[in-house]
Structures are given as structure tokens and as C-alpha cells.
């Protein structure tokens, strides 16, 4: 592979890098490797991850506790060959903690704060229900961006089978806490439903029949307590969204060469375009490369048999055939994806031995993603 495409030009000058893709494609490690590569290049970089694998978390020196920024020990980085003037930081996002912090900050008074935090609806909502995680990831991203403490933020997004959920979730959640929708339930009692027209009272009766009274009461309480904070939420959601569209932001789509993951990446690429989010590059991880040998070549067979005997030679030929078949499959999937990108940047990372879960692995991955540095 000559003149391989590298990530340098894609991430140069960016302040926010979002890594997205379906589960099991190496998103977290890719995000961490990019942050490490940027640290080598003199930047103060932080990777925000969600539920990282235990060994990777250990490697980065991340404790169980979430939402705290940790600097990865420079000596350990150096041992792994990650050297540079920059700093590598890492943080595990905790959706519930982030949500609680928001409430504590935005609640107008202690009573409201306690009422929201104790409400059963809030507790379930904040507790890793699909959607909150995505929203809170964005929230934290925005907060760190505003703090100005880092040159660049690399966000590892939650694994969603349907990667599209990720872009929709913040909108969904902010619509739900949107003050206009709160009006329905804030009128706790039917008297206040007049503004919805005459049908609303009857509708609420039907709703009660379907759900039970308690649920409606809890909802009303929740929205009542939340009412004063809704405007702030909506406002922030808007600012987070505009941050994602800024010049300084780029989305990297991460995938494996498997057909299903490639298809997901294709969907997501289309979704990015239609929502006006800046696409940077597609990174295909764990690509199997072909062996420079032909399993059907009789000369190869006889040369191997000379050295190893016929039985062992056949096994080696078999291994070569397997590997080339898989490499062919990967290449075909990648070419299909390349055509769909219409000239968009695509990087391939060959399968590294074993999966990446330590600093050495991150260093190896970073070396594949970035161009060699002139020292």
C-alpha cells in the first residue's frame, strides 16, 4: 500500500472530533488513538468515552467513577512510544451524573432540585434510558468545549445498533423537556387543559384508562418541577447542535469491513449529509490484507513441500487460501463503501495482532492513522 490516506489533514485545526459507528467496530480505541496522536503533535487532547472496556480503562488510568478528567500518565505514554509536547486526557462519561449536575446547577431553588431528583420519572429518565446517554454525552462535550481547557475534544459515541439514533436522541430529549410540551402536564388537574380545547379533558380520561392515574400524576409533578428549567435546556440543546455544525467540528465514521457494519456506516454518512453535519472521514478498522502468495500456485505448493513435507505444506496452503478469501471479502466491502462516499476520505487500518486494549496497542493504531512525523 503506497501513499496511504492518513487522518492528519482531516483532524488538523479541529476542536471537536466525534467518532460514530455501530457497536464492536473499535470506536473507543480509535477515538483514544486519535487523541493520543494529537497529543504527540503537541495538543492538549481529551478523549471522552462511554463504558470503555475494563482493560482499556485501566490502560488510560480511568477509575470506575465517571465524569472526572484524568491525565494519562506521561511516563506510561512514553514507555508505549507516545511522546510529544502535548497532553493526553481521558474521561468516562456518566449520563446520570451529568444529568444530576445539570439539575443541581439549573434548579432555581433547593425544593425544586430535590423534587426533580426524587421524582420516579426523572430517576428512570436519567438512568441510561436510551437517548439520555446520547444527550448527556453532548452536554458534557459542550461544557468541556466552553471551558476552553483543551485544544481538542475527541468524543466516542454510545454504541447504537442503529447509529442514526445518536443524532436524533438529543433532539428527542430536548423536545420532551421543551416548555411548550410541559404546558400539558403542568396543568395538574383537568381545569388547566382548557388551552388544548374541549377534547383534552376527555382525552385525558382515555389516557388514564390506558395508563393508570399514578403515572399521570408523577408526570405532572415532574413537569411542574422541571418547568422553570426547560427554557435553559432548550437553549443549550440549540447551542450544542450549532457546535456540531461548526467549522471546528468533524465527524469520523468508524466501521469494520463486515458487510453489516459497512451498511450502517453508509446510512450514517447519508444522515450526516442530510442534517448538515461535517463529515471528515470513514475509518475502516481491522482490514485483513492479502498474502503475497497464491494458494493455487503449484510452484508454491512444491516449494513448501520441499521444506515442510507434503502434509504440513498442505496446511500452510490452506491457511493462505483462508486469509486471501477473507481479504478479498474485506476489499470488496470497502470498494462498495468507497463508491458510496463519492470521493469522501476513506482510511483503512490493517488488522493488528489481537485487539487493542493497552497503550502499546493505542500507539500502534495511532501510527497507522497518522502520517509519520518528521523528527
Amino acid at each position, binding site marked *: 500500500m503506497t501513499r496511504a490516506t492518513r487522518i492528519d489533514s482531516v483532524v488538523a485545526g479541529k476542536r471537536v472530533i466525534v467518532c460514530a459507528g455501530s457497536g464492536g467496530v473499535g470506536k473507543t480505541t480509535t477515538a483514544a488513538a486519535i487523541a493520543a496522536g494529537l497529543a504527540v503533535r503537541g495538543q492538549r487532547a481529551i478523549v471522552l468515552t462511554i463504558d470503555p472496556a475494563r*482493560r482499556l480503562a485501566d490502560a488510560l488510568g480511568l477509575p470506575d467513577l465517571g465524569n472526572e478528567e484524568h491525565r494519562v500518565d506521561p511516563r506510561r505514554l512514553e514507555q508505549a512510544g507516545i511522546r510529544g509536547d502535548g497532553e493526553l486526557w481521558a474521561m468516562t462519561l456518566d449520563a446520570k451524573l451529568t444529568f444530576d449536575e445539570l439539575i443541581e446547577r439549573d434548579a432555581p431553588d433547593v425544593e425544586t432540585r430535590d423534587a426533580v431528583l426524587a421524582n420516579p420519572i426523572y430517576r428512570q429518565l436519567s438512568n441510561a434510558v436510551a437517548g439520555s446517554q446520547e444527550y448527556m454525552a453532548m452536554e458534557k462535550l459542550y461544557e468541556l468545549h466552553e471551558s476552553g481547557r483543551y485544544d481538542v475534544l475527541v468524543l466516542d459515541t454510545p454504541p447504537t445498533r442503529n447509529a442514526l439514533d445518536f443524532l436524533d436522541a438529543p433532539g428527542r430529549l430536548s*423536545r420532551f423537556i421543551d416548555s411548550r410540551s410541559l404546558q400539558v402536564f403542568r396543568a395538574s388537574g383537568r381545569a388547566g387543559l382548557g388551552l388544548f380545547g374541549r377534547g383534552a379533558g376527555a382525552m385525558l380520561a*382515555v*389516557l388514564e384508562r390506558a395508563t393508570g392515574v399514578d403515572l399521570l400524576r408523577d408526570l405532572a409533578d415532574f413537569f411542574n418541577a422541571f418547568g422553570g428549567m426547560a427554557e435553559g435546556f432548550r437553549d443549550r440543546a440549540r447551542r450544542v447542535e450549532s457546535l456540531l455544525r461548526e467549522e471546528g467540528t468533524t465527524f469520523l465514521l468508524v466501521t469494520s469491513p463486515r458487510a453489516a*457494519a459497512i451498511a450502517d456506516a453508509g446510512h450514517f454518512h447519508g444522515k450526516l449529509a442530510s442534517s448538515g453535519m461535517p463529515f471528515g472521514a470513514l475509518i475502516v478498522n481491522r482490514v485483513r490484507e492479502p498474502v503475497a502468495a497464491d494458494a493455487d500456485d503449484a510452484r508454491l505448493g512444491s516449494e513448501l513441500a520441499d521444506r515442510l513435507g507434503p502434509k504440513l505444506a498442505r496446511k*500452510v496452503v490452506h491457511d493462505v487460501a483462508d486469509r486471501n478469501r477473507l481479504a478479498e471479502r474485506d476489499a470488496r466491502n470497502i470498494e462498495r463503501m468507497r463508491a458510496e462516499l463519492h470521493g469522501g476520505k476513506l482510511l483503512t487500518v490493517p488488522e493488528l495482532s*489481537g485487539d487493542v486494549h493497552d497503550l502499546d496497542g493505542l500507539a500502534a493504531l495511532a501510527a497507522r492513522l497518522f502520517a509519520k512525523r518528521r523528527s
Partner: protein
Amino acid sequence: MGALLDRRLVFVTGKGGVGKTTVAAALGIAAARAGRRTLVCEVADQERLTAVFGLRAAGFREVEIEPCLNAFSVNPEDAISEWLRYQLHSRTLAGLLGGSRIFQYLATAAPGLAEMVTIGKVWELAQLERKTPSAAPYDLVIVDAPATGHGLALLRAPRTFGEIARVGPINRQAEIVDRFVRDSTTTAVIAVALAEEMPVSETLDLERRLRDELGASLDHVFVNAVLPNRLSGAEAKQIEAARSGTPTASARGERSTGTVAALDASLAAHRTARAQRSQLARLRRGLDAEATTLPHLLTADVGRDGLDRLATRLERAL
């Protein structure tokens, strides 16, 4: 494990990208071959399950793939409207409510509602007495569930909902579904994994969380895509020796036949296979459930042939 196909519901989860859909489909074939009237059911909008059978999307209806094997795709929107129809015993009222702004707010507001109606529909599909008019019951429903975290959230949804709606019809239904999915005589939770560091860790974590958060147990683990290890330790040494004793083609001034590359490829395959075996051993050490390996198909696409081969392998293990 022998009783896996005798449950009413088999819930297939595991880390992303490990081949859950493939295993769910192969399990469906194996169950159908055993004469079980089987439904394979997916719960995301992906419609991958029908795609692996080379069919068009099933959608929110029961579609026959072949005798004894059917497909269904649950999406929350249709599941909510259906639930409303049963709840209110009236299509008109349900339509009215489903289309109302108040309900739209509730539906987006109520946390976990999408998960609740999804698992509720899965439960309905697995009942011997179906609520769906004129629907025939299934012997077995196999769910191609979302990856670990979201899969657990789906199983936990009835409990979550029971806690939110403490009394009333939702609470009662949530309890019934909760009991069903946590009862090991009716429901089995199985995990698909790969013999690699992270999927193994996630599988061990899943077993622990199932126990701690749901009081349920993991029934079985299928370790997918296990590569053949063709070489014994002695053979690998023999190849290494040949490798170091082989001058490169260019050094000998010959056209390369790739002998060195071939030897390297074989050694790499050996290393990978050995790494897989050590991860497999780690999984078995930490796991209460039994683990069965499935071979890497090593073909360009899994396809129907591959599914049939995996199904045969599963039949032998079951």
C-alpha cells in the same frame, strides 16, 4: 442446554458486531428442523434478520420464511398503537388517542416506553394464547436483541415500568411480562461472543449484570467465528525454522512464489488461533453458563449455506 428449544422465548444478545443476527437465524433454522413452529424476531429497525435469509423486510407482521420458520420485526411506533388498541378495546379511541398531542407528549416523555412496548409485543408473540386475533401460537420465539447494554435495558423495561406506574393497568401488565422474561422455564437469555478480549469481558459482565440487576441467569454462550488451528506446537516450530532458513526470493534472484509470505501467513493464523483459545479458556473460567464454539465460516458471505452449516453445528450442541 438441551432444553433451550423447549422454552417459549430465547433472547439473543452480546457485544456489537459478534454475529448475533447470524446466530439467531441459525438457531431459528435448527428449531424449525426440530419441528418447532418458530418465529425469529428483530427489535431494531434494521431488518437484518430477513436480509440474511435473502428476503425483503418483514415489517410489523408475521411473515413465513419457510415451513415452521417465520419472521417479525417489532418497531415501537406500531407496538404502541397495537397496545393502545388492546388497552382501550377500540380502534377508534386508540386512533384518536394515538394521534393526539397529549399522547405524543406522553409517548416521547415516558422514559423507556419504547422498550416496554417492544418487550411487551415480544411477550405477546410468545404466548400460547395470542391476543392478536386469529394468530396461531408459536412453539418458540427467538429475539435478535440489541447489544448488551440496550439488550439488558429491554429485559429490564418491565421492571422499570412497574416502578414508574405503581398501580393500574400498565403496572399489572409490566409485572406479567417481567415474570415471564425472568422465568428460566419460559425464557432463555443467550449471549453471542467472539474469542477476543473485549467480547469475552463484556460477556462475563453480562452474566454478572443479569444476575445482579434482574435476578436472571445467562443460559448459554455461543462463541462465534472460532478459527481453525491447523498447526500443532511442533509444526509451528518447524515452520518457524523453515522461515528463518529460507532466503527471500530476491536474495536468490528468483521470481517470488511467496513462500516466505505463505509461511508468515500460516504462523499468523496459528498465533490468532492460539490467542482465541486462550480467550476461550478465560471465558470458560469466569462463566457459570456453558459455552459452545461455532466455526468461522471463512467464506465470502455467510449466506444460506453458511446458516445451514451453523444450524447443523447448533443441532449437535443442543
